[in-house]
Structure formats: structure tokens, C-alpha cells
């Protein structure tokens, strides 16, 4: 049942993505100022929005684990954070490619890029710490703790990077100001959906892997005890 769900989500997400890419590359014209490369934004922005969606889920499940001590919540947390970190990396790489094309440089320390890099590092630390703790209950508890601290830092990071001593080169937010051409809305929405479906499929795969690993670990301990 679970496997069918994973396949369904994965295939659906891939199909939506392919359809979307088809639309983006063949139907939409080149943008006036940016040329062809603007198309990368249809992956760049949905990646970060999905990343934050999964991070929010991970926050809720981290709190849930600390309250209930049920391991399913820990497994969901780590799966969501892994997928979110991957999406943040996609965001950074696509942003870098876009920046190289538009500004001539692979990287710059502007507001959003810097905030994204810091958030990426925050959760990378979480992922690096997990394998270093052997005992599952301890690992889950420490991870939940770090996960909550990391999430609390995100608004502070955004606040800090807005401080006067940081330059800004990143283009302003487009979604809020409504400066985007209406014909972009559909591919954008579909891009969000595609990444969300693929991301969910990956979360479920990781969830299953984490649960199996715990079962094997407990069987091994059982054998040693006898």
C-alpha cells in the first residue's frame, strides 16, 4: 500500500514536472531583460518554498516527538529535513547559475543568498549530527532539540541579514508585489506542485528506510541480550 503511494506520488510529480518543463521551454517566450535563463526561476523559487514547507512539518513533528516519544515523529522529522536540505541546495545551485548569467558572478553575499546558505548550514549540522549518536532514543531526542533551535533561528537569520551593514543585490520579491506576468502563474503553480509531490515521495521513502533501520537495530540488540 505504502509502496503504491510512493510510486503514485513520484510518477505523478515527475509527469507534472515534465509537462511543466515542456511549457516553460517551448511555450513561454524569452524574457525581455534576462533572456532564456529566467526559466530557472520556475525551479529556484518552488524549491525554497517547498523546503520551508517541509521544514515547518519537521518542526511540528519534532515537538510531537518530545511530547509523545513516538518514533514515527522522529522518522518524519529526519525525512522532511533531508528533503528540505536537498531543496535548499537546489535553490542555492540554481540561484548561483542564474546569478552567474545575470550578474557575472557565481556567488555574492546578498540578503537572500546569504540567508539561504545559513539555513542550509543549520540543517546540514542536524544531518551531520544524527549518525554520530548510536542510541535511537537519544538520537531522536537530540535531533528534535536541534531541529527546534534551528527553526527558531530562521527568522533571526532573516532579520540579521537585513541589518544595515549587509549589501543587497538580490532582486526584490516578485510574488508579493505582483510584478509577474500572469502567464507565469500556471507554470509556477505546477512547479510548486511537482516539487511537492516528488518531495513527499522522497519523504515516504526515507521514512520507510528509517523505520526499517530501527527494527534491525532492535533485533540486533535482542540477539545480543540473549
Amino acid at each position: 500500500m505504502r509502496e503504491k503511494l510512493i510510486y503514485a506520488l513520484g510518477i505523478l510529480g515527475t509527469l507534472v514536472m515534465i509537462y511543466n518543463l515542456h511549457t516553460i521551454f517551448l511555450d513561454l517566450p524569452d524574457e525581455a531583460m534576462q533572456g532564456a535563463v529566467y526559466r530557472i526561476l520556475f525551479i529556484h523559487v518552488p524549491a525554497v518554498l517547498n523546503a520551508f514547507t517541509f521544514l515547518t512539518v519537521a518542526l511540528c513533528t519534532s515537538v510531537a516527538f518530545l511530547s509523545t516519544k513516538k518514533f514515527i515523529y522522529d522518522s518524519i522529522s529526519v525525512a522532511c529535513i533531508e528533503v528540505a536540505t536537498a531543496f535548499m541546495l537546489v535553490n542555492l545551485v540554481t540561484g548561483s547559475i542564474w546569478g552567474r548569467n545575470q550578474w557575472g558572478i557565481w556567488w555574492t553575499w546578498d540578503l537572500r543568498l546569504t540567508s539561504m546558505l545559513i539555513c542550509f548550514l543549520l540543517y546540514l549540522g542536524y544531518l551531520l549530527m544524527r549518525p554520530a549518536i548510536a542510541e535511537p532514543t537519544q538520537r531522536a531526542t537530540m535531533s528534535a532539540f536541534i531541529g527546534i533551535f534551528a527553526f527558531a533561528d530562521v527568522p533571526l537569520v532573516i532579520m540579521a541579514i537585513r541589518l544595515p551593514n549587509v549589501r543587497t543585490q538580490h532582486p526584490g520579491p516578485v510574488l508579493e508585489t505582483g510584478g509577474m506576468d500572469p502567464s507565469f502563474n500556471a507554470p509556477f503553480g505546477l512547479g510548486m506542485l511537482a516539487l511537492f509531490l516528488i518531495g513527499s515521495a522522497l519523504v515516504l521513502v526515507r521514512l520507510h528506510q528509517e523505520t526499517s533501520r530501527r527494527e534491525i537495530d532492535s533485533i540486533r540488540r535482542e540477539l545480543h541480550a540473549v
Partner: protein
Amino acid sequence: MHAVAADRVWKYFGDYPALRGASLEVEKGACLALLGRNGAGKTTLLRILANLSRPTKGAVTLLGISTHTEEARRRIGYLGHGIGVYDDLSAVENLILFGRLLGVENPAAVAARALDRVGLTRVKDGLAREFSRGMRQRLAVARAFLHEPELLLLDEPFTSLDDRAVAVLQTLLRDARSRGATIIMSTHQIREAMELASHVALLERGKIVFTGPQTTEMLLDPGWLYRTYGEPQA
């Protein structure tokens, strides 16, 4: 009201249950020897009683109140595997620190008295790191008995004690019993435990399979309990 009541306690490490519904009731003033093979869960159970670990399922009450309260912890003395004293503090500094943490009235006086009982008054200003092994063990015992706790939790206390430390511990345990304290002692050294114990419990693979007063049979042949109630060895 029981001194200690553990009601169907489960403890999971990951998916592995170290304790599987262990239930235990200990009367006030009893001295319980908690027996069990390695890996049975003795240390896990004692750590839960000492508030070092949370049970996954089940409840534990000490003297009628939950272990998680300050009130309960104030009345416990815990002696685990490690000696629990700071190497870089002197003997008296260690005991005054713990006295303050335990909320005793006059930490300095209480510390002095405790050092006297374990025979360390002469070296009270020496750093714990300079002590011999036996002296460190006696300091650990002084720490556990510092505030004359109503409930003593001792995890394999006689393991690796030298003769003098064993004698000190046995004296302190008898004194504690005579003032009505409850003692739970997990142990491998069945003989020493049986001499002091009034009750016995056997923990086997996370479950309490036997609990009851000590009998002459157990005293004469400590292995009898394992053979009668324990699981057959592979």
C-alpha cells in the same frame, strides 16, 4: 503506601525493550536485593527510579509521589557505577556542593559528619584525584548517604570495593535500615546482598519474575532463585 511502586514499566531503547512491563512494590523499611543476569535490566530500572531516565510506558512513584518532583529526589540517595565525585574538588568541597544541591540545612556541618563516618576526616582538604581508589569509593558512599535519605538506590555497590570500603558501606546500610530507610540494591555479589537483604526480587529479560521475602533457602544457596524462577540458560 509503598516506598517504591513501579507499575508495568516499559523502557525502549529504539525498538528494543530493555524493560517489559516490570512491576515492583517495595515496603518502607525493606532492604531489597535486586538480582538478575547481565542485560536483564537492573541498571535501567534503577536509573528510572533515580530520575535519570524516563520510562516509555508505566508509572513510578517514590513514597507516594512521582519521581519527577524535587520532593522525591530530595529523599533519594543514588550510588551508580561511577563514583560521582569531582576530581578537582577536595573531599569536603565535594560534599558541601552536594549538600547544597540536596538542600540540607547546614552543608558544612553535614559534610564534616559524613566524612567522619567514612573515615576521611584526616584528608578532607585533599583533592579527590589524589585519593586512592578505596578512598574515592568511601567518598562516593559518603555522598550517597549525605542527607540521610529515606530511599537508597545502589547499583552493584559492592563491585570493586576494597575491604575497608565494604565495611564502611555495610555499616552505613545497617544504620540506614535501623532508622527505617528503604534500600534497593542491585547486585551480582549475591552473598553480601543476602546478608543485608530482607526481600529479594529477580529481574529476567526486563520482567520481574519473582519478588518476596528472603528465605533461608536463598541464603544458603543463592543460585536457587535463578534455577527456580529464571529462564533456562541457552
